């Protein structure tokens, strides 16, 4: 982690510039849903490289297993069966962190350095700085971070930042047998996606397109979708995701303003005191009471 300390774009709860003299190329992972066969090799590779083994769960009657992301399952395949023009389509989406260019999680995190965005676009959680408050969870438009019950730290896909730092592709990409997962510069991935989209269109998927949602500034994990006009078909992939206005309000300009107001009340009190003086009991009343007592 410290290896990459010189190419950081943003750091949670930090108001001064991050170490950023080095610029790295923006990277991206492309997930081509149309060529994914749902084999879960990527899920297995993720466990293996990151050395995490989720608890063995129970069968829920569907292919999704585990049924949701957890602190130990950073990517899961979601299987949706939808009927399009009288034909069954099995839309299999690899879910996980999207590595947003404008990450809600990082914006919300109150702990300095618990969430880092490298200049290559990867959003990484540094658990040693995480306090377990859970602010990142409601701030993520994709419902990705999970807090571990074991250590109360937040975990999610790191896009194998450790591998990428030394010029390797993420483990999931290495393992994918069909080429549904690709990794490279964001530009390259967009070009590659264009080819895939052209191919899909030629085969009758008129609405095929790239999912690189601009509401979060674009993402460093992108999907090629057959039905890009309806991302919600893919196990509720959000259409037009953005950081919730409530989160923007909570983390926006209001806070510095409120902090200044609190400081102004404190200072205002002090200056009230030094300009008006204390509100003493009047000598007149003191004397009056003393006289009553003397009687």
């Amino acid at each position: 982690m410290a290896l990459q300390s010189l190419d950081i774009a943003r750091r949670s709860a930090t108001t001064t510039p991050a170490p950023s003299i080095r610029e790295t190329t923006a990277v991206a992972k492309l997930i081509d849903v149309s060529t994914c066969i749902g084999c879960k090799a990527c899920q297995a590779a993720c466990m293996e490289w990151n050395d995490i083994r989720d608890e063995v769960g129970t069968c829920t009657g569907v292919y999704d297993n585990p049924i949701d992301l957890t602190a130990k399952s950073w990517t899961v395949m979601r299987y949706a069966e939808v009927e399009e023009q009288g034909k069954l389509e099995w839309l299999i989406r690899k879910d996980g962190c999207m590595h947003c260019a404008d990450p809600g999680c990082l914006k919300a995190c109150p702990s300095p350095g618990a969430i880092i965005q490298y200049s290559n676009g990867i959003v990484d959680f540094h658990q040693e700085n995480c306090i377990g408050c859970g602010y990142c969870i409601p701030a993520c438009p994709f419902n990705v971070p999970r807090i571990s019950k074991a250590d109360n730290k937040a975990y999610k896909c790191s896009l194998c930042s450790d591998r990428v730092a030394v010029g390797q592709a993420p483990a999931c990409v290495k393992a994918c047998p069909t080429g549904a997962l690709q990794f490279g510069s964001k530009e390259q991935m967009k070009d590659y996606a264009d080819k895939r989209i052209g191919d899909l269109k030629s085969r009758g998927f008129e609405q095929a397109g790239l999912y690189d949602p601009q509401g979060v500034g674009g993402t460093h994990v992108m999907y090629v979708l057959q039905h890009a006009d309806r991302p919600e078909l893919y196990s509720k992939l959000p259409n037009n995701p953005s950081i919730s206005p409530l989160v923007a309000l909570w983390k926006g300009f209001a806070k510095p303003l409120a902090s200044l107001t609190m400081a102004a009340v404190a200072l205002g009190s002090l200056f009230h005191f030094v300009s008006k003086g204390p509100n003493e009991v009047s000598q007149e009343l003191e004397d009056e009471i003393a006289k009553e007592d003397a009687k």
Partner: protein
Amino acid sequence: MIRNPKDLQRYTAPERTNHWVVGISFILLALSGLAFFHPAFWPLTMLFGGGVWTRILHPFIGVLMAVAFVSMFLRFRALNVMQPADKEWLSRAKEMVSGNDHNMPEQGKYNGGQKMMFWMLSICVLLMTISGVVLWRAYFGFPAELVRLGAVIHAAIGAFMIGIVMVHVYAAIWVRGTIRAMVYGTVTRAWAKQHHRAWYRQVTGK
């Protein structure tokens, strides 16, 4: 040693203890809560043993304050019902703030400003408790939308409450002879006659 046996009893020992439990827990809550509020306040986590301890402790102190506040609310509620005289006092609060309170309307045990403070703080504590529980990730898992709303409410009301509590504390410092009411429970008769004349007449029969 009692300074003067004729001093007036304003608060009993249980009332004072109750108030101090609320006051100390409030200060701890404000310091620990501000640490999460904005990075400028992050160093305050050092007072509680670091970020993780601050996150763990804050909600428990909150529960303590909420319980102590309910008890205080029940003790003082009846004395804080707004009366017509309070409205008049409030409409002329400017004179008071400007430092000359000699012509202010006669006040009972609490003046209009104190009563306003009582009801505002009661509502704030209610909102802070509800929104605080919604934010309490270690033990609760409320839906994201609710947590987002809870966070906004908790942060906004928290800042507001810190502001009005500073006013509350300052008022006690500014009006000389008031702090002792919360420390040893008594005030001088002159103090009572000047600031709460109706109450003075009620307790002295004069």
